[in-house]
């Protein structure tokens, strides 16, 4: 198979895996927090937050990428602040690709997590409180382990989505081989040239295989987590 993909393609694959992995990891804590807030708390602006989270799903990806550029670009409000204060640059970096993938995958992750959290019986959390555990501890030791199956499913879905993300990524961080050239950009490039369809198809097969593996692994992991909870 190492003959089957060229070195640039291997690089794109590796980068895609890397970016998707980090995007998933990065969005997980935020996803859990926002899903928890949406599932359990009543607050003003809840509907707005909900719509905001869904926005990347609703907007054409190019628009999302453009908005990212406006916000997180070096001239953007947050981007320049990040640079001035932390020296962090997102534009044209793999870190930016991570951000784009994370934002695009975020609605899917939050939805999975929200449903999982809604399924946790608040009575168990109350029980933990009567045993003296403060809120955060209750969350970490009771809620979190119980939503594990949903968390796995949501993460893998986000990972799969991140693997396929193209429009927002290329708009935000463009395509720099070895830095930001992900599998989808490579596929897109092949499709632009007459006769490139074969090469594009090869990469499509690769990404389908990866995503398929991730999905199967997640179903297996989620089943194991459920069994662990059901107990022996």
């Amino acid at each position, binding site marked *: 198979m190492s003959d089957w993909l060229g070195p640039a393609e291997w690089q794109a694959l590796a980068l895609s895996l890397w970016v998707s992995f980090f995007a998933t990891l990065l969005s997980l804590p935020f996803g859990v927090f926002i899903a928890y807030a949406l599932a359990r708390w009543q607050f003003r602006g809840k509907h707005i937050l909900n719509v905001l989270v869904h926005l990347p799903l609703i907007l054409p990806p190019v628009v999302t990428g453009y908005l990212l550029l406006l916000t997180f670009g070096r001239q953007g409000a947050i981007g320049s602040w990040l640079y001035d204060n932390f020296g962090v640059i997102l534009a044209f970096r793999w870190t930016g690709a991570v951000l784009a993938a994370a934002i695009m995958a975020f609605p899917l992750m939050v939805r999975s997590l929200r449903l999982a959290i809604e399924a946790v019986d608040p009575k168990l959390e109350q029980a933990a*409180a009567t*045993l003296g*555990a*403060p*809120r955060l501890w209750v969350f970490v*030791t009771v809620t979190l382990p119980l939503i594990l199956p949903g968390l796995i499913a949501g993460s893998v879905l986000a990972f799969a989505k991140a693997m396929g993300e193209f429009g927002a990524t290329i708009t935000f961080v463009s395509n720099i081989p070895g830095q930001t050239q992900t599998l989808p950009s490579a596929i897109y490039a092949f499709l632009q040239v007459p006769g490139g369809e074969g090469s594009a198809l090869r990469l499509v097969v690769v990404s389908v295989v990866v995503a398929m593996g991730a999905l199967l692994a997640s179903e297996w992991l989620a089943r194991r987590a459920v069994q*662990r*909870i*059901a107990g022996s």
Partner: protein
Amino acid sequence: MSLLVDIRHRLGALDLEISFRAPGGVTALFGRSGTGKTTVINAVAGLLTPESGRIELDGEPVFDTRSDLSVPTHKRRVGYVFQDGRLFPHLSVRQNLTYGERFARAKPRASLAEVSELLGISDLLERRPGGLSGGEKQRVAIGRALLSRPRILLMDEPLAALDSARKAEILPFLERLRDHTDIPILYVSHSVAEIARLATTVVVLEGGSVARSGPAEHVLSDPGMVRQIGVRDAGAVLPATITRHHNDGLTELSVSGGRLFLPEMDTAPGTATRVRILAHDVILSRALPQGLSALNILSATILALRDGDGPGVIVQMQCGEDRLLARITRRSADVMALQPGDHIHAVIKSVSIARTDVGAG
């Protein structure tokens, strides 16, 4: 160790206004479905915030609307045993038991090993709750609450979901708890038998307020409580002392009005205990009956007769220093011409005194 509850709260159509003081021991909250028992317990635990009032644990306020105080649940140090167990399904029994340990202000009075031993769950420690029977689950829930070193134990119908075999399995543990620790217990139950066996104090709720409260012996033996308690469960609770174990399997007890025989009890002679005599298990006789298979016959004086809803009459009697109740038919009362002040013999079948109705106290 005591609890003071004095709260007002509106719940749907129900106006709660509940005020009582629970001394040490087991305080039973008793009342029909929907009278606010769970609401009271939740208020004590801090899971519900009453509209106004005051709750004190050990003299220290944990809730007070006047000073705008409401200590959050996790700082109240109450051990709550829920009707449905609520064990953490992802943790082993051991992890469930030790969950509250790190938050206990001091070392628990009893170690994990001791509590497991007491509750008979030492062999389950490495298992997960999913595989436990209902009775085992409930015992683990009790152990978990205990080991968090609570200032009070709250138990909301902890046995209601269990069949009678499981109940019989757990009741002795609750008795040991009452007798071997000094943690006060607030106990909700629909079962008079359970309450009679466990409670030192009974608080009867009716339609959102306290209808009657006081020592268990008084409340349960009060003929005025027959309606709340239910005709079939009405009866008297008498303090007793174990005198002797006979080798035909009977245990002899003395009550203020005489002596009683019960199926063998495993408590040492000299121990103080309580016996419960259901009103419908008592037969009255003018003459001292002869040649009957019933071993227990007490002399008594009739205090009052009260008509019930049906053809029954409740006869309240003084028997030594205790009160006794009998439920007989109107017809028998008429035929025997029973009057207050009459001397009478109360025939009680020894085996009709249920084992579960006897407890140390």
